[in-house]
């Protein structure tokens, strides 16, 4: 098959993935609305779970080895779990999401074969591969902890990003310009995408954490589906774990980028626009980690920092690529 045919199939698969993601998005939203509808039941069981949990976990998470204690604990945990029980919509949505992701990965692979290189040399390819990595990370994170309630956020974001990329950023397969020809292309960009994926899921959790905090303090009367979500403390703990992993990857991205820049442009750091924004993102998330260790900054403020950091990542990828001048102008679009 020729390059163009392969690229055309890849694009077709990308569009198919968008369609399935869109259906998954609708299902996730239905799941959230369904949770709102079933609130009385969920809250009743949550209330029942609270006293039992208090007895079993007195003294900061005590778990007794004795039979009575452990049985009480297990009952409490079981009840707490039933609150967060997935609706049929959520299970369907997650299944659809995995199907869409498989098609999506197919689109990435075909594009890579068509171009005979890593499929991330221009903005279309970066969006295509980057969103696939975000969904992949979301699926993997769900093996660790159940965060499927973020599904609407993730699929919504991916549909928007991928739709925008397929319709507005699409460029035909072209050879990479000489500065991009380096194995650092693979290292630097793939790690940057991994970091972005962790930031995206962690940032999403931070958004839910803020909403949950508002609800816990009684400031939020709408969005009662939040009652079925984990507590803001749990959300914050999960969010920070993911962001810390993202930060480690981002640090590596920055260094790999510097090494590549040294080979390609003769300096490892030159305050090029893209470098400035990578630095800003790094500093914001470094601030986030410090904020989590600073009295009075834990919780709301650190969550806001995570969201600002995520916004900076997206700004770096979209606005900076399209409208700012600099050596990283690799969108492949001729309007630059």
């Amino acid at each position: 098959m020729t390059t163009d045919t392969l690229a055309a199939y890849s694009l077709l698969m990308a569009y198919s993935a968008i369609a399935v993601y869109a259906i998954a998005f609708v299902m996730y939203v239905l799941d959230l609305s369904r949770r709102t509808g079933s609130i009385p039941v969920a809250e009743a069981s949550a209330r029942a779970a609270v006293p039992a949990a208090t007895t079993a976990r007195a003294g900061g998470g005590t778990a007794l080895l004795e039979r009575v204690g452990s049985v009480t604990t297990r009952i409490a945990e079981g009840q707490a779990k039933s609150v967060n029980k997935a609706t049929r919509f959520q299970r369907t949505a997650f299944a659809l999401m995995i199907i869409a992701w498989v098609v999506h990965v197919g689109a990435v692979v075909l594009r890579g074969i068509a171009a005979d290189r890593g499929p991330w040399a221009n903005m279309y390819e970066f969006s295509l591969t980057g969103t696939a990595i975000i969904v992949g990370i979301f699926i993997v994170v769900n093996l660790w902890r159940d965060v499927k309630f973020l599904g609407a956020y993730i699929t919504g974001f991916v549909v928007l990003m991928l739709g925008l990329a397929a319709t507005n950023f699409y460029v035909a397969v072209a050879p990479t310009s000489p500065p991009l020809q380096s194995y650092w292309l693979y290292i630097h960009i793939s790690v940057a995408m991994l970091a972005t994926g962790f930031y995206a899921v962690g940032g999403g959790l931070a958004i839910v954490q803020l909403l949950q905090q508002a609800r816990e303090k009684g400031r939020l009367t709408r969005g009662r589906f939040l009652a079925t979500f984990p507590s803001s403390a749990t959300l914050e703990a999960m969010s920070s774990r993911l962001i810390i992993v993202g930060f480690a990857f981002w640090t590596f991205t920055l260094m790999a980028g510097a090494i590549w820049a040294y080979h390609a442009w003769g300096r490892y750091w030159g305050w090029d626009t893209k470098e400035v924004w990578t630095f800003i993102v790094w500093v914001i998330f470094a601030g986030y980690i410090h904020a989590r260790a600073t009295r009075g900054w834990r919780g709301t403020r650190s969550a806001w920092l995570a969201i600002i950091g995520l916004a900076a990542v997206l700004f770096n990828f979209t606005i900076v690529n399209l409208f700012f001048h600099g050596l990283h102008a690799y969108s492949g679009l001729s309007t630059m």
Partner: protein
Amino acid sequence: MSRSDLSRSDSDAPTSFGARPDGHAEAPEPAPGIQQPRLGPVGWLRFLWRQLTSMRTALILLLLLALAAVPGSLVPQRTSDPNGVIQFQQQNPDGYKILDALGVFSTFASPWFSAIYLLLFVSLVGCIIPRTRHHLQALVAKPPRTPARLERLIGYTEATTAVDAPTAVAEGRRVLRRLGYRVENYPLPGGGDSVSAERGYLRETGNLIFHVALVGILLTVGVFGGFGYTGQRILVQDSTFTNVGSDYDSFIPGRFSSVDDLQPYQMRLESFRPTYAFNQTTGTWDPEDYVTRLSTRTPGGGWTKQELKINAPITVGGTQIYLLGNGYAPILTIRDSHGTVVKNEPTPFLAQDANLTSNGVLKVADGLTDSTGKPTQIGIQGFFRPTPPAGKDQILSAAPQLSPKADVFLSVYIGDLGLGGGTPQNVYTLDVAKLKLAAGRDPATSKTVGGGPIDLVRGQTATLPDGLGTITFSGIRRYVSLDIHHDPTPLPALVFALLVLGGLLLSLFVPRRRMWITAVTGEDGTRLRYAGLARGEDANLEAAVAEVAARHRAALGDPGDPDGPDDPRTPIPRM
């Protein structure tokens, strides 16, 4: 009251991990409502120092640093985009004056940006020093005394066993050691025995390495960077460059370096071969690869051939040489009215677009006389197209490759070039303000003068106006523009960067934990108690205590919980 209650230095308190800056979530909270004593000058200094090194100040400085970097991306920077600055100045002179006064065009060298990062690093050093001291003490210290009230700690678990207390503790000690804990036995005050254990010292070590290495990067760039230099040079095929200050087109020495430090090696451009691919979609030629062959010779050595590619600089005489750009250098031979050659060398023309439509300037100050015999200076503005377009109405080159039809258009100006004034001139621009157009198109009126611009393909000759002589387009050479620099910082910077990364990974992913096992022999056997304590966040601590308990009981030969592990959650993969 026990000593640990009185002492501010908390190394005795088993539930504290020690030195933390003020405002740190794990530092002791300031007691409210305490009457502050009046501060003398030293007191004020101490107060300011404490403020500067506090966690909150560091955090604010960090966020300010991110904010202060933003203008550096919105406005072109002198260092990375000097032409952008000039363009900004021309388009918006008033805004330029204000922004320039604020130093926004060199944001990253501006006083306000420097102030933020210097304060941040001072604050950092102020934090590192006490923490390092404390950590060094912790590294040689024994794990802390077993706290009396284990049930208040994390993952508290009880069990009973048939073996006696000393045996149970000795076995617990082995289990903990095998898990990488440092252990110490403490008899319990009310009878019974206990083992206290601690692990994860690498977390703090990593944290300190991370911060020290950041200071290292700053010092490397700030101090070592001053010993470097950087320069640019356009090198035409078959010509030779010698690494001395005068042979550079532009040269910027570092703070502590000078032109005298250069090692005078030589370099000659043998050939430059670009390959292009036609992009069907955009209808343009995209560069695929550039192969530059150079010969270099260090003093006293012979010529060696080297190949320079865009991602692979070559290293000669302590400098790295990078390919920045390339273009064509037409050879325009100028003869006087008697046919004597006045000028015959390639002139680099600077590319204006991706198809290498190029502009160049030729200045002839000596050797030409007009028809009356008066010495005359001429300046020529040239326009070069490697592949002239097929259509007559098109102007720009159609492709970057050199075709047989490659042509030049030359506008000839006559008058004083002003070369004698001593002011250095840019060789790539011609100031036509004081010159008279003798042949070409007047840029102001668009009228042709003297028969219009001289249009030549290779091999053609035209006569110059005023009987000055002739001009021949006799050949063409490729040239490359090279960035040549000496930078001693990359290696130390890389080492520090790797330390930053390694330290970060240790400090984020190694858990620091304390673990206690107590054993008290009673009437129905020995009562075992387990509990843990973490520094920072440690989502897996409860599971870790449960694991220690399970291993310990297995080692004692006690039956485990028949329903499997006590923790009903799914196992957590380590991240």
